[in-house]
């Protein structure tokens, strides 16, 4: 069943975008997500969209991809938004969209099938599909037609679940390329990736654009990653038309990257955009714990002066998996890291770094008393345990939260109520004390105007601030954070870093898993670097046998 455009498949026709007074209100909202947008993008242009959260960047990308839903189900569209002069919904496959969460960018379980999925839906003939699949995988560097490479050379039936985050995003890009779209839309494609993954994806996108000449619209907080790849920056601002009646245009600034960044540097930094070469001002550490001390290998963190010892590990081996039963046998999990020795001191930071898959989070969660050690020991000192026993994993949940607080990477995982205020009161209420602290946290983390809101409806930065506040409401002596700065804008980043530096000076111990060197240098303290102890391939084989 050949489709009309399958004959010209080899050539990509770059798409033009034209928005005139365009606005969109989501169903169930009173204000428009994006308002009065006037924007023209020429075919082949590469545009970086900037703006504070709430400026409607994602809404615009979804609209351009034709997946915004129908007007009428209580949603509301004004003005016009056209791709090549036609409504985006009327032309499936003209635009390809990549979103933030790598897990949901994969549709099928085998590499080749996943790339073919979009082309199948566009009724591309079979032989042509496989030609495109090979080409697309080659273009994104997942399968080299000639020889292997460091970044990956996978068989077509390679399981997609075994790919890393960066590889999943490159796979998604291949799936998009196989549709031969004239417009590529990237919605924070690297927000969930480690630095190596970020570059992997950025470079793959660059190569593919050079080859196809397609139009690009990318939304991303980190300007430095994309600046050299784009030829235009558009800054959006939130506009409101309902309450005040004052109507502001959606586009605040528009021009070539250097000009926009020079003109609007102050305004962009104020809006939380990561402008190249800018590190937001943070509160300096005043205590003696400041300054970095390096530890290396899978070894020990350097102990230092000052601060009471709260937690220590001896030859700790960690794994996320529990023992498995196979028939009558119990098989202990294979640890991702073993032989870990670390010490956590009051008023001192410990930063856990290392590449993806090194077991950093697993180690942190074990330190936090949330995972059982596979072997070795985690011991809480008397000053921390306060009569609850030396093994944090055996503590009751309520004993745990007033001693060790953990902030997860995904704030939503930790929400237990339907209201911001209840969320903050939850810990103190169950402990029976500390409710007065909630007020201070509301103020300090700028959550007061949100007390009645549902936690799930907050923006990314607000969710992050709330998740930190809820854990601190129980007043733990040790705070463990898993990638707290992932995907955060510069403002939230600075607030978080300053707040944690304050906590450290007040004697709290802060353990964080992070790729963010600026962040760890603000906190100071010791660094512990983990490298993958077991190769991924070996573990995979063990699972399949």
């Amino acid at each position, binding site marked *: 069943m050949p489709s009309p455009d399958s004959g010209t498949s080899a050539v990509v026709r770059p798409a033009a975008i034209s928005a005139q007074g365009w606005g969109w209100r989501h169903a169930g909202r009173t204000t428009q997500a994006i308002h009065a947008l006037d924007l023209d993008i020429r075919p082949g242009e590469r545009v970086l969209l900037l703006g504070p959260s709430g400026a409607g960047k994602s809404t615009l990308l979804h609209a351009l991809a034709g997946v915004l839903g129908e007007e009428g189900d209580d949603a509301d569209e004004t003005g016009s938004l056209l791709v090549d002069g036609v409504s985006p919904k009327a032309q499936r496959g003209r635009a390809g969209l990549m979103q933030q969460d790598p897990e949901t960018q994969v549709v099928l379980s085998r590499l080749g099938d996943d790339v073919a999925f979009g082309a199948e839906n566009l009724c591309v003939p079979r032989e042509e599909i496989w030609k495109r699949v090979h080409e697309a995988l080659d273009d994104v560097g997942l399968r080299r037609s000639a020889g292997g490479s460091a970044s990956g050379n996978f068989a077509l039936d390679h399981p997609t679940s075994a790919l890393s985050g960066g590889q999943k995003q490159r796979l998604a890009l291949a799936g998009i390329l196989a549709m031969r779209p004239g417009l590529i839309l990237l919605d924070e494609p690297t927000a969930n990736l480690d630095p190596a993954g970020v570059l992997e994806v950025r470079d793959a996108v660059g190569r593919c654009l050079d080859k196809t000449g397609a139009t690009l619209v990318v939304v991303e907080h980190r300007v430095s990653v994309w600046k050299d790849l784009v030829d235009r920056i558009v800054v959006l601002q939130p506009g409101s038309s309902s309450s005040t009646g004052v109507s502001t245009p959606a586009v605040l600034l528009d021009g070539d990257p250097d000009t926009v960044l020079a003109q609007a540097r102050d305004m962009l930094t104020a809006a939380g955009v990561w402008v190249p070469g800018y590190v937001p001002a943070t509160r300096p550490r005043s205590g003696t714990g400041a300054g970095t001390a390096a530890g290396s290998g899978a070894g020990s963190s350097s102990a230092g002066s000052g601060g009471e010892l709260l937690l220590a590990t001896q030859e700790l081996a960690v794994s996320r998996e529990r023992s498995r039963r196979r028939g009558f046998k119990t098989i202990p999990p294979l640890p991702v890291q073993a032989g870990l020795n670390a010490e956590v001191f009051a008023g001192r930071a410990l930063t856990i770094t290392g590449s993806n898959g090194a077991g950093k989070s697993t180690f942190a969660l074990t330190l936090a008393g949330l995972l059982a050690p596979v072997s070795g020991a985690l011991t809480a000192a008397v000053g921390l345990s306060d009569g609850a026993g030396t093994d944090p994993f055996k503590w009751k949940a309520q004993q745990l939260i007033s001693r060790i*607080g953990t902030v997860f990477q995904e704030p939503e995982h930790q929400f237990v109520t339907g209201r911001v205020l209840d969320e903050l009161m939850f810990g103190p209420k169950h402990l029976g004390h500390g409710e007065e602290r909630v007020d201070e946290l509301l103020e300090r983390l700028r959550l007061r105007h949100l007390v009645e809101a549902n936690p799930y409806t907050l923006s990314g930065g607000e969710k992050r601030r709330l998740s930190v506040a809820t854990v601190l409401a129980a007043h733990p002596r040790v705070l463990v954070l898993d990638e707290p700065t992932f995907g955060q804008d510069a403002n939230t980043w600075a607030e978080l870093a300053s707040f944690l530096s304050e906590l450290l000076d007040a004697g709290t111990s802060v353990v964080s898993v992070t790729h963010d060197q600026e962040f760890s240098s603000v906190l100071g303290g010791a660094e512990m670097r983990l490298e993958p102890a077991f190769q991924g391939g070996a573990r995979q084989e063990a699972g399949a046998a």
Partner: protein
Amino acid sequence: MRDALTLRGNNALLTRANPLAKFVSVFLITLVLALSIDLVSASTALLGELALFPLAGLTVRLLWQRGWPLIIAAALGGWSTAILSADSGRILLDVGIWSISEGSLQLGLGFMLRGLAIALPAILLMSCTDPTDLADALAQKAKLPHRFVLGTLAALRLVGLMAEEWQTIGMARRARGVGSHGSPPQRFKAMLGQSFGLLVQAIRRASRLAVTMEARGFGGGRRTWARESTYSRLDVWVLAGGLVIAAAAVLAAQWAGTWHFVWLKQPN
């Protein structure tokens, strides 16, 4: 759990057969076994199935690893039937209220073998069939609506993810002071909350996945298929094999005089 469904490294003959043919064969055998409770038909079918194992790339060890809960359940079922059913014939063992007679032993054995004979084809089918290929066959050959089939397939991928998410949410909630300790009602409440958390995440993930699929043009009326689901001569053999095992089970039982429809009363 996410590795359990892949076929990588399995190059056995039956992996190349059409999933639909395998599906029909398994259905035939299961249907026949569901009709009668007797030792002969069950053991005939079981022998036939065991002979097929190498063709599906299964070894006894793999079978035990994947199917041990079913195997133990079948054994326990057989044992309790043997102990508890009404005695008939010579008494073989008598310990207090438990007794095993020739008749009850036969019934118990029949029960156990039947359980195994019904469970094994399912394990056999799973171990030599990739879910993607099954979906291809269901959509292209059985003509089920492709939106439904592919939607289910994509959702299946999320099930594995959700198992990991369940563990993470459990830890995240413990870090908020919601424990799995306490009285049964408290634990139940905690579990309810965790389920809600998982539900929210499942819906988020599912709607993001739906956007991904829609953005790749999914949802239209027509599509082409990168992988053609085809029948080959092998599928004739697969069907024939299913028929032969099913028929052999019935005929052997008839010949031995043990065939007995389940809905008729037991003769003794």
